[in-house]
């Protein structure tokens, strides 16, 4: 049994930019995998390489035992791709788009019509099926694009930022669809900039940054990699939050982090629950009032910060700008 994906020393350069730098990775089949990384991390480059659209400068990439450079056709027979920008024909209807892709996968006329109908239902596009895609909203286009990647019932589904630009309702539908596909035995490799998306959809997460793997594991493993639980407290105003931070800093452990927007202050707590009373007592002694105080596991945001030294800079409300 081959690993789903086996990358060894993958490098790819675009002009002076190194999109992938000696990336090595082994992913087993049978569980949805998320590639997580900020803008320019190399996510799209990696997905396009798996989809046989670009070739590595150095290194090898095997998909289910097939080399993407030496036997791209074998890889293409098993994949469905929904790239970062919707790859549909605007001047054709939704149904025509799906039938075309189904025919290209090798289905006969009747079969293609039937599988397109199934996808239209699955993607909630039946009412718009016979309208030109030009008249679709961004979310409908995205759903059609996802549908087109499914119409051949591929063994491996490659999704490059599948929910970017979707409203929360559509995003949930897409999430449900991806989970259904995964349950029915389709392998899924998706990329995302959204930590919560990776957390929700993937059983295994690979974090990449500047073309390298910086960490990988299950969401739980990654959270525990950063180690400590966090003590987080919430204050009524920003000055109070700053005073609380001073008190926590004076405890002489790790430096606390603050978020003025939510008036929250958090501190890594290596001692776990034993630290909590210490913090409460110190705040009490300094007469700093807090709204609430909790002990929790670190979020993936914090994991990312700890692993790369950078924030993720993700804002789920703003759509993707530089589609590379």
């Amino acid at each position, binding site marked *: 049994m081959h690993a789903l994906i086996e990358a060894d020393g993958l490098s790819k350069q675009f002009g002076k930019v190194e999109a992938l730098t*000696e990336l090595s990775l082994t992913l087993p089949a049978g569980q949805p995998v998320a590639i997580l990384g900020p803008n320019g991390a190399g996510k799209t480059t990696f997905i396009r390489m798996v989809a046989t659209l670009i070739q590595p400068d150095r290194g090898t990439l095997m998909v289910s035992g097939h080399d993407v450079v030496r036997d791209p056709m074998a890889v293409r027979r098993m994949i469905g791709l929904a*790239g*970062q920008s*919707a790859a549909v024909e605007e*001047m054709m209807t939704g149904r025509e788009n799906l039938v075309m892709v189904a025919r*290209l996968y*090798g289905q006969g006329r009747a079969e293609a019509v039937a599988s397109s109908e199934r996808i239209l239902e699955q993607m909630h596009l039946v009412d718009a099926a016979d309208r030109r895609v030009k008249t679709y909203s961004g979310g409908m286009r995205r759903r059609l694009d996802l549908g087109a990647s499914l119409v051949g019932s591929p063994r491996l589904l490659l999704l490059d930022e599948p929910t970017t630009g979707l409203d929360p309702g559509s995003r949930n539908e897409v999430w449900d669809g991806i989970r259904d596909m995964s349950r029915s035995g389709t392998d899924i490799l998706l990329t995302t900039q959204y930590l919560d998306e990776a957390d929700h959809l993937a059983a295994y997460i690979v974090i990449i940054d500047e073309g390298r793997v910086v960490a990988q594991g299950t969401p739980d493993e990654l959270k525990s990699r950063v180690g400590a639980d966090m003590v987080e407290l919430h204050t009524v105003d920003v000055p109070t939050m700053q005073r609380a931070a001073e008190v926590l800093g004076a405890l002489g452990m790790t430096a606390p982090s603050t978020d003025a927007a939510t008036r929250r202050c958090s501190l890594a707590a290596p001692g776990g629950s034993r630290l909590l009373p210490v913090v409460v007592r110190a705040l009490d002694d300094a007469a700093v009032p807090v709204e609430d105080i909790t002990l929790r596991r670190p979020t993936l945001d914090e994991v990312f910060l700890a692993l790369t030294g950078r924030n993720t800079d993700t804002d789920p409300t703003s759509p993707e700008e530089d589609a590379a």
Partner: protein
Amino acid sequence: MTMDITLDRPGPARPVGVAENQGASYLCASGQVAARTLKKNVRTPALIVAGTAQGVLFLLIFRYVFGGAVAHLGNLSYVDFLVPGFVVTGVLFQGMGAASGVADDLEGGLFDRLRSLPIRLLSIITGRVGADSALVAWGVIVMTAVGFAVGFRVGGSTPDALAALGLTILYGFAFVWMFIFMGLAAGSPQAAQGLSFLVFPLSFVSSAYVPVSTMPGWMQGFATNQPMTQMVNTVRLLTGGPAVEQLLGHPVSYYLVPSLLWTVGLVAVFAPLAVWKLKRS
């Protein structure tokens, strides 16, 4: 830092019977891509109408503005001289759209999907070429009809004239391969449009509008030997009869053989180049 962690946790078993996609045959895939391109073009009527109207307008200008200054060339009336030249070089102006069209496809992401499917790369290109050639054929037929409307008459036999029409469309097909490659090489529709300006020297520095002998010496070398002149003169001989033979002083084969060599050469050179370019884009 690189890590190799293989999870040995077993995942859910794949359902049995999920077959791989065998992919469409070469012909079926080309047909699908051609149908898509034709639909796109036909459903953007402004594009076709504008292109056709432009051609008609230029034909009228040449016929009536220049036609006044050059009434006859030997025993040949200017309109009988002009229309073959105009229709043959018109394939360049019609075919030019293929370059920006294919660059557009590349930019829009649709080609990414097509390239990820189990079909041959060449079928994507031949599909595009087929559709663009159909548009060129449409343009050739419209221009020919307008040519007749402004006074063009066939001086030779009808089979010869029909052969001339077929050869013109065939030439258009050959040049579409070149434009497809240019579109793939350009990278963006704007750049493709820029590259297409190559058609101006190719169409005007030829025997299409005025006899090559009226050009300065240094230009004549290019004008005499370039592919447009070969096909323009072939079509002229096939449609013009004795008056053209007198004017050109050569039999049809003198121009037909190089024209056919150009046709084969263009496809032989640009088909592999286009596949190579598409593979690397």
